[in-house]
């Protein structure tokens, strides 16, 4: 009996030690939210962000004394973490990288702090930011909630050398029918080369980013202005038919699993002659290490019924409303999105790495123009993107390659699985859009 009590006491003792140890550490060395000279930034791990991480300590921290702790995660993970953090207003992170998809409804939910003090800073020069971004990062209350870090539209990239050798010409503003014909002709132009790479990987931000722009220009839409789902409309269906057929006929191997990265690899390695995707891809294709540097031509996003069809996207900085370091956060944003930072990147890493696509002055810089042969096409694409009216009919919410409602991420991803299957050779477009219609109508009914 005595021995039994002793063992129990031993176990209880161990537990006590553990608990007190954890309590100690919690009070002492736990989280850094208390340090007044440190801010926490949660961001997606795109190359531009990694460059920022590299340059912060020696430049921003040295100048201001503010330390920056970064947490970088892949896109899907960072989205999940940001929504969890911001919806509960946990206050762990002061700044997060958000896109123009999230900022409108995040700000409407009261999760973000306005950035008007940054915008009013004459040194920051808000007027230099492309107006399309200022508009799409402004909340319904008219206040600015995000500052772009870099921005992009979409355009068509093609191998100039291959086109010249085959005697093909790419119009400056091609139509999708022209592109399909060119894809057929360029298919096999070099050994192992396919006509065109288009994203086929499931995900609202994967296959449905380029595909929704095709839907728009084919005259389709996810919803009409009264929130009636239009996924099985003839226009939407025709766009999906066209897209999946084009990829199946002239896309590279494994097209159903190709996302941005896979297409970038295919393009760099000479496996495809054309690629329709983000303008920010051009920086990688024109970088020093790229085997296809100088061989790429750039044309506007292909169209059918509309005048332009490029998308509009920006990774921008937003401050959590619960952050206790609004001031330091504002200083960081004013630095990271500044012209000065772009020049810093240019001097340390080269102009092709500059987080461009947000400032008018960047496009006017002759050094950038030389390093980025795509500058004119990119600027034209961004300036001609219209998030409020991207198609042929009025829309109920903003967004070109997305519908600006929180439910779209899940909806788009769900429908994308059917589309991706079609590209992989399973199922039919009719079936995919019929299921998509059903799912979309459920979402639309919430807003009616």
């Amino acid at each position, binding site marked *: 009996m005595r021995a039994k009590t002793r063992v129990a006491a031993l176990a209880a003792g161990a537990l006590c030690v553990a608990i007190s140890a954890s309590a100690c550490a919690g009070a002492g060395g736990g989280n850094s939210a208390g340090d007044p000279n440190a801010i926490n930034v949660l961001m997606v791990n795109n190359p531009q962000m990694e460059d920022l991480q590299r340059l912060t300590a020696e430049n921003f921290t040295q100048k201001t004394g503010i330390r920056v702790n970064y947490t970088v995660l892949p896109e899907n993970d960072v989205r999940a973490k940001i929504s*969890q953090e911001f919806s509960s207003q946990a206050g762990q*992170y002061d700044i997060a990288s958000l896109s123009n998809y999230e900022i409108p409804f995040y700000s409407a939910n009261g999760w973000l702090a306005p950035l008007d003090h940054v915008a009013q800073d004459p040194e920051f020069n808000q007027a230099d930011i492309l107006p399309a971004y200022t508009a799409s990062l402004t909340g319904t209350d008219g206040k600015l909630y995000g500052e772009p870090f870099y921005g992009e539209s979409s355009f068509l990239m093609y191998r100039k050398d291959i086109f010249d050798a085959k005697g093909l010409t790419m119009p400056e503003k091609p139509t999708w029918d022209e592109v399909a014909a060119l894809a057929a002709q360029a298919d096999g132009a070099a050994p192992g080369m396919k006509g065109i790479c288009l994203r086929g990987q499931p995900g609202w931000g994967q296959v449905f980013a380029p595909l929704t722009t095709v839907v728009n220009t084919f005259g389709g839409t996810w919803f009409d202005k009264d929130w009636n789902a239009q996924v099985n409309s003839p226009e939407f269906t025709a766009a999906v038919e066209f897209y999946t057929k084009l990829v199946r006929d002239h896309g590279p*191997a494994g097209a159903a699993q190709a996302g941005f990265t896979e297409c970038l690899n295919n393009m760099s*390695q000479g496996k495809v002659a054309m690629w329709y995707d983000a303008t920010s891809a051009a920086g990688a294709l024109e970088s020093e290490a790229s085997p296809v540097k100088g061989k790429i031509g750039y044309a506007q996003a292909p169209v059918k019924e509309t005048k332009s069809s490029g998308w509009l996207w920006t990774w921008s900085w937003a401050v959590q409303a619960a952050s206790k370091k609004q001031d330091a956060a504002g200083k960081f944003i004013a630095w990271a999105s500044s012209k000065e930072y772009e020049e810093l990147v240019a001097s340390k890493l080269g102009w092709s790495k500059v987080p461009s696509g947000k400032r008018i002055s960047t496009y006017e810089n002759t050094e950038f123009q030389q390093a980025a042969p795509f500058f004119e096409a990119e600027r034209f694409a961004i300036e001609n993107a219209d998030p409020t009216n991207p198609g042929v009919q009025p829309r109920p919410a903003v967004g070109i390659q997305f519908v600006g409602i929180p439910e779209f991420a899940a909806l788009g991803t769900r429908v994308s699985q059917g589309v991706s299957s079609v590209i992989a050779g399973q199922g039919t477009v009719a079936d995919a859009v019929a299921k998509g219609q059903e799912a979309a109508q459920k979402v639309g009914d919430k807003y009616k």
Partner: protein
Amino acid sequence: MSTLTPTERRASVPGPNVRSTGSRRRGKSRMDPTRNNTAAGIAAWLLALLFAVPVLWMILTSFHSETDAATNPPSIAADLTLDAYQEFFGATSGVSPWPSLINSATASIFSTVLVLLLAIPAAYALSIRPVKKWSDVMFFFLSTKMMPVVAAVLPLYLVAKNIGALDNIWFLVLMYTSMNLPIAVWMMRSFLDEVPVEMLEAAQIDGAGLLLTLRKVVAPVAMPGIAATALICFIFSWNELLLARVLTGVVAGTAPVFLTGFVSGQGLFLAKVCAAAVVVSLPVLFAGFAAQDKLVQGLSLGAVK
């Protein structure tokens, strides 16, 4: 776990259970035991190789440059380089992996020690001196594993937020302890079941008290079992991603969370991720090798009756 497979297989192939399964086979193997053993040996090696190929592939890729790592078909004979490792240790990004590795070590080691401290007495009370309705107790322990972790993630997050334990490595220690405790109790119980009752009685007759019996009789027999349990708990905590990703942030991030940070939606990352995965697997590999002798006994404890 894949690192254990070859040992496990090698241990079990020439062992007594292969030769003694069924009378039909026994006759055959008597006729030509060497041939049968060679065939089994080759099969075991092939299987072991099959399990090892992904790991070897990962190691090879980690020594390639990013562009070579991304080619399709793969370029096996590409030049070897340490770039990916330098990248992992922060050569260009300036971000050191050490804080997250230390966090992982803290979470895994402390939780494993806690689990053992709690599981061994519990298993003793369920096996050697079973409490009343001990099978109900066992079932209760198991039932706590029936709800998927993901269902508890949001409540856990809110609790952690409200008590101010977010981004605190000691909260993760607590989580891992409770996560591994039921498994450890089950494992330890089956190991303690192996302690022969006669030995305990003999110790009692010789006048040994409880603590002496535990130290001199139970511990030596159960040691391989304790080692196996500890290793399993260590591996589970070291590799855990879901809770770590949700509950940590800036300071308490563990190695798996750090590792996922290399997976980029834009740009090449395969070599970096492979290098990171190699480095992050090393501690588990070392722990496995260190405990190998004990493990081979421990893993076969319940098997040979």
